[in-house]
Structure formats: C-alpha cells, structure tokens
C-alpha cells in the first residue's frame, strides 16, 4: 500500500532519488536516530566520510 500510509509515502519520496542518494539518506537517518540518545553524538564529519565513500 505504498503511498497511503506514512511509511509508504516516505519510501516513495526517497525511492525517487538515485541509489547513492538513497544510501546517504539512509545513513543520515540512522545516525540521527542514534544521536537522540547518545552522550557523544555522531558528527557531520562522519557523513562527509560516508559521502566520500559512496561517491567516487
């Protein structure tokens, strides 16, 4: 039921992007989810590193 519930709508929006952009978004959401509860949160440098790894 893609597009009718929230998860479906969000997935549809993300799937419109190219594969490597989807990977970046997935990574950002994962670390920001963890950051909500971490004393020493992940930094932007980790995302920069990730982007450099996937875009070569």
């Amino acid at each position, binding site marked *: 039921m893609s597009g009718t519930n*929230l*998860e479906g709508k969000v997935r549809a929006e993300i799937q419109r992007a190219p594969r490597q952009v989807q990977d970046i*978004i997935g990574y950002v959401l994962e670390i920001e989810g963890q950051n909500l*509860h971490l*004393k020493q949160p992940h930094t932007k440098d980790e995302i920069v590193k990730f982007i450099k790894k996937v875009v070569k």
Partner: protein
Amino acid sequence: MILEELIIRNFRQYYGRQAIEFAKDQKHNVTVIHGENGAGKTALLNALTWCLYGTINLPHPEKLLNERTAAEMNEGELADAAVILRFTEQNRSYAVRRQQTFIKVDGLIEPFGETTIYLQYTDENGEFREAKNPQVAIDQILPERMRSYFFFDGERIDNLAKEDNTHEIVDAIRNVMGLEVVERGVRRLDAVRKHLQSEFKRLGDTETRGLIEAREKLEERIKELTIKKEQHERNAKAMDEEIKSIDQHLRSLDEARKLQSERDKLNRELENIKQLYKDITERLREHVSRYGYRAFRDRIAFKAGELIEESRARGDIPSGIKEQFVQDLLEEALCICGRDLPEGSQARRKVEEWLRKAGNIAFEDRVIEAASLARRIPEEKDRFFQDLQRLMRDRENFARQKASVEEQLDEISDKLAGQDVSEIANLEHKRRSLYNDMKREISSEGECQALIGQYQRSLSAIDKEIERLEVKQAQASLAKRRLEACNQALSTLKAVYDVAKAHVRGEIEQRVNDIFRDFLRKDFYVDLTDTYQLVIRKGDESTFVDAAMSQGERQVASLAFIGGLVAIAKERSLRGDGVFKGGVYPVVMDSPFGYLDQQYRRNVARGLPTMANQVVVFVSSSQWSQEVAEEIRPRIGKEYRLKNHSKVPEFTEVEVATNAAN
C-alpha cells in the same frame, strides 16, 4: 512503557517508605490518587520525573529530604531520599533508583556526595543486569523531551491550546511522531553541504569560486532576513495578543460590551471575506497561468488557417488518393484496371510513382484536426476573457465587502474612542496604536519574505549554473559530484519532512477530533491549522466560525491532543517499522479537572480511561465530584489516598483507599 510500582523513601513530604502500585488491567487501567492541596500530589508527580530524569519543578528543589526524617537525624548521621520506579518495556522489566544521601553537620542538613542513579533490568534469559549508562537507557525508553506530554500538570495543560504556543504543538508532533530525526538529518546535511561546497570552492577554477562566493553571500543574506522576519512575526503576534486582551477587557465593561460584540462579529466576517479574497486571487492566478496563452494565439491561428487554405487550393489536401490504397495494389501486384503489376514492369513503375503524390492518412487527419483547432481559437479566447472578467468582478466584489466591513470597524473604533468613560476611550486609543504597529510589523514581515523568495530564486539560478559547470580537473570534478549528491539528499530529505509533517498533522487532527467530540458538545470540532494552532470551531467545515475558547475548553482541546498523540504513538509502536517508531506510553496527570464545568468534567472523566493503556490521575476532593466519580469508578484498578499528618514537621503517607478495587 508500563508503570508497575513507585516506591518513595523520605522524599519531600513522604516520610519513610511509601509505595504505589499502578493499575495495569485493560478494563481497570486507571490509578486514582486522592489528596488535598499541599498533601503531596505535585510532589508525587515530581518523584516520577526526578527518578527518571533528575529534574524537579517545585519550590526549593534542593530540599529533597523529608523534614521529619531530617528532624530525627543525629549529628553526623546519614539519611537517603530515594525514589524507585519499576516498569516494563517490551517484555523487559526495569527498576530505576535515584537517590541522594544527606548528612547532618552542625545542625544543618547537607547533601553527602552526588545524586546516584541505578537502572537494573532483566535480560532475555531473565537474569538481572545493570545498565552502564542508566540515563541514556531511560532516554531511549521515554526521552526527557517527551515527558511533559505524558507526565503533566492538568491545570497548566490548557497552554497547549493557546495561540502563542504553537511551537509546543509542533514540538510535540515532532517528538512523539519521530519527525525530529528527519529534521535533525536536514540540519546536519545542510552543514555537510556547506563543508563539501567549500571543498569544491577550494579545488575549483576562478568561475567556480566566483559562483560559490556569490552563493555564500546570498545564503548569509537569507539567514539575516529570516532572523528579521521571525522577529517581525513575533512582534506582530505579541501585539495581536495585546489587542485580544484589550478586546476581552472591553467585553467586560458594560458601556463597551455591545460595540465590542459588534466588532467581534465584524472581525469574523472580515476574516471570512479575506479568505474568500485570497481564494479567488489564487483562482485568478491559476486561470491566467493555465489559459493565459489563449489571449495570444490570434496570429498563429490566422497563419495556420491561411496555410491550410493554400494547401487545399493547390489540391495537396485532401490528396484524393491514399498511400495505403497504393501500397495494397503493389502488394497484390494487380492494378484497379485489372492489369498485372509484376516487379520491374513499366505499369508497376507508374503505380509506384503515385506513392509520392498519395496522402498519408495520419498526416491528413492531423491537418484536419489542426484546422478545426484553429477555428476554435477565437472562441476559446473569448471564453478565457469572459471567465477572467467574471473572476475579477467577484474579486472586486470581495474587495468592496472588505472595505465596507473595515469602514464599519473604523466607526466602532471611533465610537469607543469617543466614549465618555475614560477607561474605554484610553483602551481604544491604545488598541488603535497597537493595531497600526501590528500592521507595520506584518508589512515588514511580508517585505522580508518577498526578499527571501527573491534571493532563493537567485540561489537556485546559481545552483543551476554550478551544475552546468564543466569541471575538467579530476579532483574538482569529484568534489562537484559529491556536492551534487549531498544537495540531492538534502532536497529529498526536506521533501520527506514536508510529506511526513503534513501526513502526521492530518492523522493527529482526525484522532484529536474523535477524542474531542467525546469530551465536548457534538457541534464543535478541533482544527489543527497549517501553522499548528489548535483552534476550536463551531459548525461544519464549510461554514465554520472560530469559537472563543474558555480556559476549560482549551484544557479539553489540549487533553484531546495528548490523547491523539498517545493513540498514534501506540499504533506506530505496534507496527514497529520505519523511521516513525512511536511507543506505548502511560498518561500521568495532576489535577486534570481543574477548570472544567460540571458537563465537561463528566465527559472528560468518561474519556480519560480511553486516552492511554494506563492512566494515573491525582485529584483533590473538590475535583472528585459526583459526576467524575461515577464515570471513572468502573475503570479504577488501584486507588490511594495521601494522608497528611499535620503534626509538625508535617508529613504524608500513602494509604490504599478503602473503597478501591485493589
């Protein structure tokens, strides 16, 4: 999170060990704690929040140790103030204990060491373990930023439905529904984008550097303007609040009441007209952007008609002989005159020549269609202008109505300003001055917004130019691709945030209304506006009016909002997938019936047990009225009474209420 038991030892009013078990049964899910003012209801709520987060919202927060315990201590003796909360979460049992040790020195009670916190839980094998980072673990179960939606003072909860507290609603939606993760992601990616942009600038050529510098300047300007715009917005809002409070004052004065009531009516009318004016302006814009080209096609239509007629005159169309017909003759190798058409014969060559003259059916159909379209162009042009004129007439009509209502409002203002009662005249003069200032603030806000829009368009143009840049040097080319990937991720994540926010708003609005209609009369409904304001409206959705909210109604709207959040968070947690995880949360309320009249009390009391899996309410005897007791009693699982001993120093004990179904 299911609350199991709260144990308090020597904490604030509570002397010795006091324990409360919470109701968990599905049918009897309400725990009621009775207590008169000062008996320790609010301290109990604070015991929960102190235990979980170490925060206290009471006078003298440093005085944690019970006074009677303190009085009984000998010089140099130690005593603990402690709170233990047992709860379960996703089939795991937890016990969190926070305590502070005190010592008596020279007759004074002083903290002895730091506050300590322990969190024990049963693992998958049923064995007890201790969490290394108790605060982090607790925050994962019920984050502190969300506690105020689940543990709250009922008398202050009406704040959520106040106009200037829309940020609290947005925060609540963001926190409970998990939108915060996406929002943080957007912020973080924006910082990453800046980082990658500066790398590209460093590696790029002169043109690249120039474009990025221009972009950076625009970004800076947009940032400054956004700050200014927000300030104007806040100023206007504050002035609007002040005007509302003057209106309220005027309503309370006998000599001004009638005029103020007329003004209220006219203001509502004005709001409706403004909305209609806005809608029709939008329709006008759409009409011109969709059909505006029809006004400029005369020349094309004329030229097309001329060309078609010339072709007809020359006999090019219709051609008289069709391509398909000639193809069929050649395929069958037989002419219509009966002669054979073998390959290489002269007769066949003659027929093949017809192919060049024969008309293509599809092409001719298109020419005929084009001719018909060209004939319709003048009609469509006329219709476009007729519709345009009608829309403009309607808009002028609304503008006249608006001017007329504004004139009537000015007259009312003149009458109030000219009143003999100086209090009224002064209030009205102040109101006028505020109104003019507010208009200036709104206009400045609009100017800022227009400039921001203009700069953002320039920013997009620069981005397109950067995209078009041909970067030959390998390192710079890689930096450009990385920046582009980040830009795409950022715009996708922003789109995700907008989609999610709009979806969640709609979902919450529906839930809140389901609950709100149970609480309040049927002809009212809650609207969660585009700007996240909780507004109570009367009538149906096409002919609504804003209903002025009393404190009690605001309280009901806010309770319904929290109920809606709890319900959606629970559903999400049961689905258990995606970014928007939700959770199962109890609702703990201190004095939820504070400002409610008899009817609302009954309705709220009936609805409360359905708000969450577990509901805990603290009530005084004046709030535990007959109608509240009648509605809640069938759902009570546990019931306690806070017994206050007035013997100095005072202390409180928790007793199981005699009529409770324990």
